[in-house]
């Protein structure tokens, strides 16, 4: 209950901070693209609309996850509101989990509204049956999972660092998360057992965001742009990875936060 109350408050705070204003930009982009792209792409209008729509959901979501996520704990400390909260019978891990869930709820609302917007633009464009549109939903879900992971990363840094540094660290890890498998391939090329060992440790240690942007050996957005289905097993394994990694990150954040001295 306490966790939910903190999550609700975090969500309200995000709404007050006008975070959902990005939806207006998204709407404008989508409306403009539906009119303009037909002239430019000559034959790939629906594909480009889906590419643009899903990429926007991912980019806007990632920006919110990073820039709001890094302030989740830091802002409470700076405003000293955390003292009032922790004076109540609230565990520190509950505070962290509540904050995380609040931002996830904001992201979920954002993603749902953008997906509906994408559906409306596709309906206006025509030629995309409902069955095809429904095939986009697993891709949207995987994008949401990648946002959940990015938020958890930002939260870790938010618990001990300044917003500027947290943003930088999260962004770097987000980039690395897309190239993690290349790191492993690169180490194998060196033929050094130590390099391979270190790369393997890093491979499992660092977040594999590409696990969530790739399903069935292809890019999630690319597959969705051709309205191809994603196997349930691929979605299931990706969910498992995201849940496990986010749990570890939240545990780490809670541990760091618990050890902080607020006197």
């Amino acid at each position, binding site marked *: 209950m306490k966790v939910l109350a903190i999550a609700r408050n975090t969500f309200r705070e995000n709404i007050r901070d006008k975070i959902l204003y990005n939806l207006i930009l998204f709407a404008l982009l989508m409306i403009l693209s539906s009119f303009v792209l037909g002239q*430019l*792409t*000559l*034959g790939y209008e629906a*594909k480009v609309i889906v590419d643009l729509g899903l*990429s926007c959901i991912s980019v806007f979501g990632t920006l919110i996850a990073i820039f709001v996520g890094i302030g989740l704990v830091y802002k409470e400390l700076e405003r000293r509101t955390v003292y009032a909260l922790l004076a109540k019978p609230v565990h520190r891990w509950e505070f962290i989990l509540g904050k995380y869930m609040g931002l996830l709820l904001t992201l979920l609302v954002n993603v749902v509204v953008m997906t509906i917007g994408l559906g409306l633009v596709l309906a206006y464009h025509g030629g995309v049956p409902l069955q095809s549109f429904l095939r986009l939903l697993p891709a949207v879900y995987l994008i949401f999972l990648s946002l959940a992971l990015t938020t958890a990363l930002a939260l870790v840094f938010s618990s001990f660092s300044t917003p500027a540094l947290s943003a930088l660290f999260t962004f770097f890890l987000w*980039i690395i998360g*897309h190239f993690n498998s290349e790191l492993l391939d690169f180490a194998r090329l060196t033929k050094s057992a130590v390099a391979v060992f270190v790369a393997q440790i890093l491979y499992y240690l660092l977040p594999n965001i590409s696990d969530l942007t790739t399903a069935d050996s292809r*890019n999630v957005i690319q597959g969705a742009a051709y309205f191809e289905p994603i196997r349930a097993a691929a979605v299931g394994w990706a969910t498992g990875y995201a849940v496990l990694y986010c749990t570890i990150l939240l545990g780490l954040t809670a541990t760091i936060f618990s050890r902080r001295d607020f006197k």
Partner: protein
Amino acid sequence: MKPRSSPWIQGKWLLGAACLVAALLVKPVQDRIDALLHQASIDPDILYFSSPAAVKAAAIGYDSLVADVYWMRAIQYYGRRAEAARRQVRYKNLPALLDIVTTLDPKMVDVYRAGSIFLAEPDPVGAGQPITAIGLLDKGISQLPQEWRLWFDKGFVYFWYLQDFRKAGEVWLGACRVEGSPPWMEALAARALSQGGEIETAKDLWRHQMEGSTREDIRENARNHLASIQVDEDIWTLEFFVERYAAVYGASPARLEELVRAGFLIYVPKDPSGVPYQYDPAAGAVHLSAESKVRYFALPYNYRETFKERLARLYESSRQQKK
């Protein structure tokens, strides 16, 4: 009421004026910079990232969207003919742009199809690189082996641009084995293998291109080629009858309409855009009018003599029948 202090008002007006002047100056300054850049750059046709692998890595998961952007760029690069004419090499970066698009998104069938035409068409219409076009189509076939249209296009490049009719026939024969390939593919392969570069086969090819393509630019290109073949055949026919007229009457006709009056023709054909052909009585030569709207492409191979021989045979047999 206390009046506002005059320095504040002055400052406000000064700031406003400065903003207005700055806004008015932005355009001329930008134009000047553009002009300087244009002068300094000998060859402005630069592609900063030409490696598909590098672009793919930089796309960080947004491969599909970046592929769309590069595809739009390739269309603009190819489509802006005035800009292309100013480049040292008209379509230097086209192969790299198409390679990037198809590496980022290997499933864009139209990119292989349209791209191969853009690459294979001779200068100034295209890059004049039919071998590169075949490479692009091979890349497409390896990604989408079930897409018979790519096989058709590969044979088409061999047939039309490289005039390797045997190879074209072999490719189309291979296409027959692809599920969903149309029944006419086998006939096309047989004709290419048995009759080589017969013009009727070429006309059929362009008709299939025109009817089978979903892209208007490809249909337009096919229409232009078919119209060009029509122009050539009309001109050769008219010139053939001008020669026959001269043989009978001792001089070339003053106007093409005289061929109708003399019974050589039922009517004088106009070009596919509906404009009459230009006739030079002194030389007995027929040309496409300057007012014609036909975008004429010279045929890659000359079958003028073959055509005239066939026409002569037809003419002789019809004369025999009349007698």
